[in-house]
């Protein structure tokens, strides 16, 4: 048995954290599927600690202004804009 049984409340909590609404059918389906998938992930417990070396180095460029999207291009896919800004829903 899985050590981390998933119930509907937990699925709803994670959905809230991820900002994704779910309908009741989705909550039911995900509750069953998540239990199965997470149980499969349990096998990671057997993995030993392994040292890893990073292949990559940090890449910096000189701090100089370069060409980028102009304001009109940056806003062209927004549903709503106002005075050159993105307009989102109310904060509260």
């Amino acid at each position: 048995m899985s050590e981390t049984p998933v119930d509907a409340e937990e699925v709803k909590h994670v959905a809230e954290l991820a900002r994704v609404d779910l309908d009741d059918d989705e909550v039911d389906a995900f509750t069953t599927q998540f239990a199965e998938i997470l149980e499969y992930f349990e096998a990671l417990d057997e993995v030993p600690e392994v040292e890893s070396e990073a292949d990559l180095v940090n890449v910096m460029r000189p701090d100089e202004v370069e060409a980028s999207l102009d304001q009109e291009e940056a806003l062209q896919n927004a549903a709503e804009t106002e005075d050159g800004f993105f307009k989102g829903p109310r904060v509260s």
Partner: protein
Amino acid sequence: MSQNAFITEETIEGADDGPLADVTVAVKDNISTEGVRTTCGSAMLESYVPPYDATVVERLKDAGATIVGKANMDEFGMGGTTETSAYGAVKNPVDEGHVPGGSSGGSAAAVAAGDADLALGSDTGGSVRNPAAFCGVVGIKPTYGLVSRYGLVAYANSLEQIGPIGTSVAETAALLDVISGPDPRDSTTRFDLDEDGNGTDETDHPAADSNYAGAADGDVDGMTIGVITDLLAGADDRVVEAFETSLDDLRAQGAETVEVSLDSLEHAVQAYYVIAMSEASSNLARFDGVRYGQSGGYEGNWNDAFARAREEGFGEEVKRRILLGTYALSAGYHDKYYKKAQDARAWVKRDFDDALDQADVLATPTMPVLPPELGESLDDPLQLYLMDANTVPVNLANLPAISVPAGEADGLPVGLQLIGPKFGEESIVRAASAVEE
């Protein structure tokens, strides 16, 4: 064009001449094309039109290619059958009752059906090699860092590469010659720097003095091919039979085969899904309908508005992965899932390094199964994840791999996967070209 391989059919002309003049290319719909909508197979981005080209698209145009359309795909690359697209499933041109594989199913189907000479896909856990195998064409997943990801809509950044698909190894490798190279806009393609980040000699990129198409000379005499026995045990007998026949053929051409075993592979699929889902939950947080994407126009508390827009815009598999990734990264579970998955990733890398000390390239069947029937596999997500057992280890290890047709079983294509050392694209191209002979 009856396979539904394209989401948007639109011609983008390239330069008048170049290595790809008169060549048509299909581009997966998660690769940005300036002025041509790029949906990622999602309703969320149904009307998203990028204001810039991905670096690979710039390179295609400069090489003279004609882009013929944006290829259908699993939503945000999340799937192995191209059935999770919001624009409908793609049919396999070889047998229309079957899936073309995924997530770059439209790209592979377009090439297999002759709708495009070549195609670009993206491969996060097999998404170029899987549909190449299922559609009977060639697909290459390059070493991480060989090809710029600038303009590729991110699903799991640490795993994915853009890769070419074509009907022959030489043509597919020629497309890799065009798209590979350093890009100032993708720091993971930069190998011209020392540990302090100094130095600017861009010729140090592995693609600078490579010739991938030229490596397709079929000369495997004296090459050692390691057969990964761990990945044969769970495969369909008909697939293994075709795989063994190809190995016989390679031995007849002078290659030597040895058996290798990698203990870490038992944990590769788990590690892959934990890492990919975790990265997806972070990457897809940007789709809130404010800067781009479906907003739904909801009023009220902004978190509620975002959650409703995302419920409408995302399909089931995308929601499943975002939620599981959020869970794996949440307080109390991070060490149990994400950290362990990173350990497994390092272990897989080390095992591959050891195996590649014993052999020039490694071989497996690309897919452990034949292409499923349309609609057959959608109900059981875990079974679909297990179908990726042979492809995901390569992404975890950042290595290059190619899928090349290895005959058919029951009228359906079988693919042979060849895995090379880091930046060993020429070796896998050479070995794959011998499989074609």
